[in-house]
């Protein structure tokens, strides 16, 4: 599929307080870079009447105060910012290392991924830990990162019956996606490992380790290393 970056952003109404701006029609790093660049500029400039800016794969949602601004003004603002691209730097990102203990009790479904890929457990780990995964967006649950860049060989369908509870820190694969569960929640992903890090720590000043636009690098660790790093605090 060839991705389309829209020539001009497409705008849509989301009720009396929401305004959605789309920069393209598919999941593509170029489209996503435009979304993030716009979000970064808006975060710095804090234009009047904008209460919240939420970037996702290919669109931005503005939540606005109708007493201070309206979709027409917001559209003009987006156009103006698009035309003054000098300020926009979508290339500022961090590479965040996530230690993962693969297989065993932490990754009970790694065998399913081996079967789907025809690789050995060691190879699955090596292939999964090789890329720097782009965080397209964060959502679904607090700190849940939607990652791009999973190696095709590891594509594995979801579990037929989802688990009622996936432990927090679990790392899994679902079709062409890979990701981490920052909090315990129900889920149907194939679990291949677990990180000892608190991916979401609401009690901290900065509750998150990463944000959209950053890159994730998984680092394989042993079980004893896991136990050494495992946090005392629990959610």
């Amino acid at each position, binding site marked *: 599929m060839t991705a389309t970056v829209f020539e001009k952003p497409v705008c849509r109404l989301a009720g009396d307080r929401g305004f959605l701006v789309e920069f393209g029609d598919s999941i593509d790093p170029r489209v996503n870079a435009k979304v993030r660049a716009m979000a970064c500029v808006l975060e710095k400039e804090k234009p009047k009447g904008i209460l919240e800016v939420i970037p*996702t794969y290919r669109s931005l949602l503005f*939540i606005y105060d109708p*007493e201070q601004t309206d979709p027409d003004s917001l559209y003009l603002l987006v156009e103006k910012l698009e035309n003054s691209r000098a300020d926009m730097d979508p290339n500022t990102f961090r590479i965040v290392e996530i230690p993962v203990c693969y297989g065993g009790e932490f990754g009970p479904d790694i065998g399913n991924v081996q079967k789907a890929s025809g690789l050995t457990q060691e190879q699955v780990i090596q292939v999964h830990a090789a890329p720097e995964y782009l965080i397209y967006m964060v*959502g679904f649950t607090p700190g849940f990162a939607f990652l791009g860049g999973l190696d095709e060989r590891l594509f594995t369908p979801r579990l037929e019956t989802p688990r009622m509870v996936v432990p927090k820190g679990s790392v899994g694969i679902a079709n062409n996606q890979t990701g981490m569960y920052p909090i315990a929640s129900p889920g149907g992903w194939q679990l291949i490992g677990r990180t000892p890090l608190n991916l979401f720590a*609401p009690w901290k000043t900065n509750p998150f380790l990463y944000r959209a636009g950053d890159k994730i690098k998984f680092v394989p660790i042993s079980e004893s290393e896991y136990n050494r790093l495992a946090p005392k605090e629990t959610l």
Partner: protein
Amino acid sequence: MKAFEVLAPGGFTTVQDKGRFGFQQMGVPVCGVLDTFACNTANLLVGNDTHRAVLEITVMGPSLKFLSSMDIAVTGAKMEMTMNGRATEQWRSIRVKSGDVLTISQVQAGCRACLAVTGGIKVPPVMGSCSTYVGGGFGGFMGRSLQAGDILDAHGGNLLTRDRVVPEKLVPEYLSHVMLRAVPGPQDDFFDQGASTLFTTRYMVTPKADRMGYRLQGEKIPIKQGMPKSIVSEPSMPGGIQIPADEQPIILLVEQTVGGYAKIATVISTDIPKLAQTTPGDTISFERIDLKTAHQIYYDEKEKLAKILACI
């Protein structure tokens, strides 16, 4: 100061304020009270700013033993209440003293009531808000709904110099059929005759209705020929009417952050409280309005609150 001890928690009682803003891009839902009108009014009745934390009470009321003198007010869904065994009223301030026991019974009309206390319920703010997010296990009182034996604090403050009462004509009625006004979009271009179905037929609230969203049942709303059945995941907005694969609408609420289904229309913010007061079996119809009208309604609602403040 200590406010009250929970003798019985009721159906599902949580601490909520207006919501946790600024973190939806990190996957943290806004949360907050669903019936903002009831919350605002309850706070005004006890002399608070409207952003103070309240109890949101769902379907079955709690029993509380007060531990200090303060003013309280209960608004929203119609529930019978007794103070030390004697009947007492909603939509007015009530002076309580240490040892008084308030018992709120099962709902008679509506779904959610709000209880405000002098100064507001005091819990440690998490990421700028006192709202409980039960799904994430944080915020509010220990990140969960109240349980028997919990003791909650209040900020306290000046007690009222006279009782405050909302005039009867300003108290909302909670009926089993509601009309919700909605602005088409964000994906109204995904639908053709589905839009007229939405705006001309009635939908029933199913038992799958909570703070994440309300699943409705009624005539199917098909996506028009040639349009994709889902969209690239995008941010959710409370009020968004999402049409999933089974073609039955779901109205998204405050505990969602992103979603991948097309949204045919969005219920205006002023009407979310009306939706929040419906229960399974109630029916809903939708009225299509344009954005200009929606904003006028938004301003009118603010004036209504100012009017209430002026006359209580």
